[in-house]
């Protein structure tokens, strides 16, 4: 074996997987995982751990994999992460743990994400459960939202003996893990449901169909229903649109709608009632993970798909693996291209999109070079569907109905990074509701921090 290279991971071939919704990456088997584990140098001052938002003891778990003690490896990961099967699949490892791996200086980093995934999948297949608290301490905590931050916060608090109830607005638990990230990247029945069952097995109760701010407010939860503390992990919020002409035409969707119809409402399965306008020629506007997910979904539903992004490839915010997979599957990247107008036919349906070519100018506030229009470079793309994947703005449902909860000028909830404390006593927050749209693992990190904050707050009360 070449120690400079990762043990290759098996994947579905691009021209097969672009017609199905099965998972793209097949993961390591035990032999492959043990072989990959031998590449870890077991650094004393491990940089990878510093790159992990939930500080998993990476060298320790890899060392157990190396020895073939997978159950032990699972326990080590479980000390830091409640959702390893998910993180192994959706974390941007290249900019976190693997980005700091010493192996990566000369050759390829250790495949930490794939090893984590293997350990979690092995535990599931062998029915290993996380360990439950011996007794409850009688204190009640409400967690709003059952996405990555909420599940993590709830899991950590339950392990400490708290009675935790998660309130979920939708009919199914999981938040972005079920409505946003597609099946082919994160299988729902095997992986997501199982991780949620694990959190439930710690004693966490999940109440679906409860919209906090509408069905009941935070003040009512604390004053009338006896909750001692609340964690808000309500997620990102309202989809943004560009504000260009034609954007309300039929055939223009937010990525949230397109993905929700397909993932949560299972439009891709024939026996579900949910309709979806699959589209024959689709443009997805944006360059993040959500854009890649929407594009690859449309492709699987049978469309020709273009990613339209105003900066260049180097600035694409999506995970490297997603961009690589999207290209392999046949998605066309129209980079340095910006939409100016959506062209609409006489029946109100999309018929095309007027775009302009861009070039990169001086760096802007984000530090990235600012795209500037090239005069006279207008052109038209013929399309029947446009999906806007431009990010989100915060949902006011909770902030507008909770007394004394401070929001910043972007309308995100203000919470400190260390413990997730908000301006309201006993109320903590984390994840996209605080930061704006970010990643699963950052939300989990925030959920973890808030669990510490809540424990400290309730222990001293």
């Amino acid at each position: 074996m070449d120690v400079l290279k990762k043990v290759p991971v098996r994947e579905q071939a691009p021209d097969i997987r672009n017609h199905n919704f099965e998972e793209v990456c097949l993961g390591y088997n035990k032999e492959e995982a043990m072989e990959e584990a031998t590449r870890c140098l077991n650094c004393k001052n491990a940089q990878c751990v510093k790159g992990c938002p939930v500080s998993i003891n990476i060298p320790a778990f890899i060392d157990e994999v190396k020895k073939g003690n997978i159950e032990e490896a699972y326990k080590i990961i479980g000390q830091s992460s409640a959702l390893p099967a998910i993180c192994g699949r959706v974390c941007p490892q290249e900019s976190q743990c693997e980005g700091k791996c010493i192996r990566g200086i000369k050759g390829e980093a250790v495949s930490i994400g794939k090893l984590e995934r293997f350990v979690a999948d092995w535990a599931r297949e062998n029915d290993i459960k996380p360990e439950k608290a011996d007794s409850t301490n009688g204190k009640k905590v409400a967690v709003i939202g059952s996405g990555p931050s909420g599940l993590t916060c709830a899991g950590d608090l339950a392990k400490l003996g708290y009675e935790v109830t998660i309130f979920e607005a939708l009919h199914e638990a999981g938040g972005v893990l079920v409505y946003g990230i597609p099946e082919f990247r994160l299988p729902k029945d095997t992986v997501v449901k199982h991780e949620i069952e694990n959190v439930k097995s710690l004693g966490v109760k999940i109440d679906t169909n409860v919209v906090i701010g509408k069905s009941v407010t935070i003040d009512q939860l604390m004053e009338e229903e006896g909750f001692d503390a609340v964690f808000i992990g309500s997620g990102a919020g309202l989809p943004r649109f560009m504000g260009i002409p034609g954007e309300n035409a039929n055939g223009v969707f937010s990525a949230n709608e397109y993905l929700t119809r397909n993932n949560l409402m299972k439009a891709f399965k024939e026996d579900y009632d949910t309709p979806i306008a699959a589209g024959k020629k689709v443009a997805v506007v944006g360059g993040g993970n959500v854009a890649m997910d929407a594009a690859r979904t449309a492709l699987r539903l049978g469309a020709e798909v273009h990613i339209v992004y105003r900066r260049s490839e180097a600035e694409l915010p999506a995970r490297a693996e997603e961009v690589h997979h999207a290209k392999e599957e046949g998605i066309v990247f129209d980079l340095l291209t910006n939409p100016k107008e959506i062209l609409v036919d006489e029946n109100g349906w999309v018929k095309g999109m007027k775009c302009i070519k861009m070039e990169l100018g001086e760096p802007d506030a984000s530090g990235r070079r600012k795209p500037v229009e090239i005069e006279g470079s207008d052109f038209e793309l013929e399309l029947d569907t446009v999906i806007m994947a431009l990010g989100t703005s915060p949902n006011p449902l909770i902030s507008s109905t909770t007394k004394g909860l401070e929001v910043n000028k972007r309308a995100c909830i203000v919470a400190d990074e260390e413990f997730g404390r908000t301006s309201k006593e006993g109320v903590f927050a984390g994840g996209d509701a605080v930061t704006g749209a970010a990643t699963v693992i950052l939300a989990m990190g925030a959920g973890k921090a808030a669990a510490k904050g809540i424990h400290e707050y309730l222990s001293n009360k």
Partner: protein
Amino acid sequence: MYKILKAEKLAEKIYLMDVSAPRIAKHCQPGQFIIAKIDEKGERIPLTICDYDRENGTITIVFQIVGASTLRMSEMKAGEAFADFVGPLGQASEWIKEDIETLKNKKMLFVAGGVGTAPVYPQVKWLHEHGIDADVIIGSKTKDLLILEDMMKEVAGNLYVTTDDGSYERKGMVTEVIKDLVVNQGKKYDVCVAIGPMIMMKFVCLLTKELELPTIVSMNPIMVDGTGMCGACRLNVGGEIKFACVDGPEFDGHKVDFDQAMKRQQQYKTAEGRAMLAAQEGDTHHGGCGNCN
């Protein structure tokens, strides 16, 4: 699970149900809606609340069969249950927040069209319970499709019923009744609330704009989550994008772009229609449209 306590057919394709949903019944207000889902494979169906009983913890909904899921819903009986029932969603009617004495001095006219009579009812009832009698116009295609007339009679001030074909009471559109009341009879109204099919609300708004009568409408566009997440329900209101689920469902009718909203309403028509045909025809459904197997 959310148990159905009563299921009743009100008219051809129009049904009423009382559903046990204590959390919603405790907090809901006139103007708000719920989302119901029959089972794992059903759609999320947004329905405006028709009535609520805070003590018994029930919500009354009225719906019309328009697609595969509402067809399946119409076949549900008392004793059965919805897998999901969530709410109350959207904003309560604006006037509920007004000072009650100010409100008492206002003359309100409600215009209900077809199944839109259901969401008008809790508003008129709320006013009645607060000592305010509002005038109500109910428009129906024909006598057989008229719903909730008796219930409405109990809570309304003057009730005017009109049918498109003249099979019951007055003959003609609701707009003709508004014109008759305001122009011919010289009645003065401070605000009009119109709820019904989009085409009706559009024509009511065109008329009330002329009459300089401020008008509130309740929009029922396509929705998925109903909490602001998907943006399917977006509308152009006075040149701004508004989400019916979190900003509405009630808006200033004179600012709503109805033509665009009606086009957006058609978005899944074909797909929904096909799903409905497939459900009705069962094993005998073979398509012919080129889209089914």
